């Protein structure tokens, strides 16, 4: 970490003040049955998100960040067993009928995925696709839906929107396609948007544009955002709170500024250290941890990160540490947490 930065300085992030939580996830567990084995993809995830705020779920492939969000959306296959609770504006979503869930999904909660071309219909014009999304959620006539589609394209700042209405997905660049996907997601004026690696496939300049766009839209529409990413840099720039996941568990959770100033969990530190940074001179060796994430069907008895952890002791290999609040608002799951860098 770059030391010296005062950690207690609160910066006005422009989001509305926190009120009661919009989304409350409690002890969420997701198991998959696969060939007689049970894979625990998400293991006791809890977080709360208020109106207008941004939460980042950070982790590597297989850490459970995407599965947990699909569980919230009710988008998991029948082979998945979901338990725990997901409350949206106080209403429990788990166990809702498909019909009731469908009404929530799209209307109140929308999701944007990594690959925009897979979310778009290649044989339908852009305008028709957005208009369709508009009419699913609102009883308006075709003309009104088309007007709203144009409005949405303007909202996501697609260049020459009038012309784009009549084009197909393949005529747009990756960044423009992602704007269209976001326009469709916004058609129902959702209260919560889940962006799953929404900028990962995009170039760095386009990524910056889309993230700025999401942030502006969030302010304009008072929308809460869950951003799922492998990129701690993106989380540092855009999230109010960060949850770091490893092997299906939340291993560290804190307001962004607090987390980056006082990293406690050795896994979070390893992630931060391993990111190449432009501030470092070329050929600086990256501090690495050996090994790779554990098999979710054969998790070690203790802490799942223990086999790779530089701080690990016997206790870590025997008993998994609980995620507990160690300082105000900051939780970590570690018996031997990192100290602040001097």
């Amino acid at each position, binding site marked *: 970490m770059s030391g010296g930065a005062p950690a207690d300085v609160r910066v006005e992030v422009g989001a509305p003040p926190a009120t009661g939580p919009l989304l409350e996830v409690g002890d969420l567990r997701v198991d998959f049955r696969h060939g007689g084995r049970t894979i625990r993809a998400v293991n006791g995830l809890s977080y709360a998100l208020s109106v207008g705020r941004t939460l980042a779920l950070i982790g*590597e492939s297989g850490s459970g960040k995407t599965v947990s969000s699909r569980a919230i959306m009710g988008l998991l296959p029948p082979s998945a067993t979901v338990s725990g609770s997901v409350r949206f504006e106080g209403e429990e979503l788990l166990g809702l009928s498909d019909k009731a869930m469908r009404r929530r999904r799209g209307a109140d909660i929308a999701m944007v995925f990594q690959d925009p071309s897979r979310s778009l219909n290649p044989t339908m014009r852009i305008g028709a696709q957005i208009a369709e999304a508009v009419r699913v959620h609102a009883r308006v006539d075709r003309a009104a839906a088309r007007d709203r589609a144009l409005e949405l394209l303007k909202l996501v700042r697609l260049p020459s929107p009038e012309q784009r209405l009549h084009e197909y997905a393949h005529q747009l660049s990756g960044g423009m396609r992602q704007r269209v996907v976001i326009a469709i997601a916004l058609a129902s004026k959702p209260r919560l948007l889940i962006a799953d690696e929404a900028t990962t496939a995009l170039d760095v300049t386009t990524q910056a544009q889309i993230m700025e766009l999401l942030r502006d839209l969030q302010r304009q529409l008072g929308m809460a955002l869950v951003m799922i990413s492998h990129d701690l840099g993106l989380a540092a720039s855009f999230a109010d709170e960060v949850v770091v996941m490893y092997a299906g568990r939340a291993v560290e959770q804190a307001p*962004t500024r607090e987390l980056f100033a006082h990293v406690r969990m050795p896994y979070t530190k390893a992630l931060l250290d391993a*990111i190449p*940074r432009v501030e470092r001179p*070329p050929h600086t060796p*990256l501090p690495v941890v050996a090994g790779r994430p554990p098999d979710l069907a054969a998790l070690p008895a203790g802490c799942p990160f223990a086999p790779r952890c530089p701080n690990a002791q016997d206790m870590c290999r025997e008993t998994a540490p609980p995620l507990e609040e160690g300082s105000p608002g900051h939780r970590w799951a570690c018996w031997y947490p990192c100290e602040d860098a001097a």
Partner: protein
Amino acid sequence: MKANGDEPLLSARNVVQEFVVRGHGGVKGGVVQAVSDVSFDVRAGETLGVVGETGSGKSTLARSVLQAPRPKAGSVRFQGTDLVGLKGRRLLEARRSLQMVFQDPFGSLDPKWRVFDLVEEPLVAYGVGTRQERRQRVREVLDTVGMDPDVYGRRRPRQLSGGQAQRVAIARALTLDPALIICDEAVSSLDVLIQAQVLNLFERLRGELGLSYLFIAHDLALVKQVSDRVAVMYLGRLCELGPAEALYREPFHPYTVALLASIPSPDPDAPRAQAHAAISGDPPSPIDPPSGCRFRTRCPRAQERCAVEVPEMRELAPDHAVACHFPVERGTALSP
């Protein structure tokens, strides 16, 4: 370019690569000007990084170096031999010390083969040694990339993780004892901890085996991590080429400035990726690129001259060249 006593390992001059595309379904046909008049050197023992966005021509440039396909114009001298114009056996021989590692290791490894055979294959193709000697060499290179031959030798690609498969691809590239390895987004699909392991492996191999790399990636921080010098490409042309440290600290080209401003920093106290300092819009089509400087349609510094005259690469600092009529002055590029 700096005057250097000995000839560079790889020397590309005025390389041009174009593809004809047919118009269909509303997509305009024409000639894609994928790489236009690009010149650069890779010196013995150095890593030259190439950064650019999708469609900048960086991958096409790599393939043009390998003659796959042969560039439309220009020369590519490798170890003193111009590869353009060589055919069949002679091209294979000349290219033997030039290997490539791609982004998707599973796409470049035959799923039916075992690790041992995959790594041995280049030796068989070039008819190197006896079966015994080849097996010995395979064990050596697997060891070099940190994979125990007794554990992994008999596995097939699907029994490997992404990081392991990429190590096998690297081992394959090493078997023929190359002088230069072209890495095209070679770590981009790996998770950050595995990516760091593989990056460190590349660095270690460079020291131990005296390798040179042409290291292509869209991630600027990643490229800086491994590079001595860095080239920036935009829409098929070279914008800037200079020492890594200087180019990132004091970039001359407005496009380089924009790229650097777009990187999110893993430090919440650092200024947020500056969208206003970055550029708006998308790159134009390489089928009908803008006249003059190709970046001018998105450039905050563009003037009339930029539309008329193609900027030539010129050296503004030691070993540091830029193709821009109105380069950013030193000390004004980034906020103090």
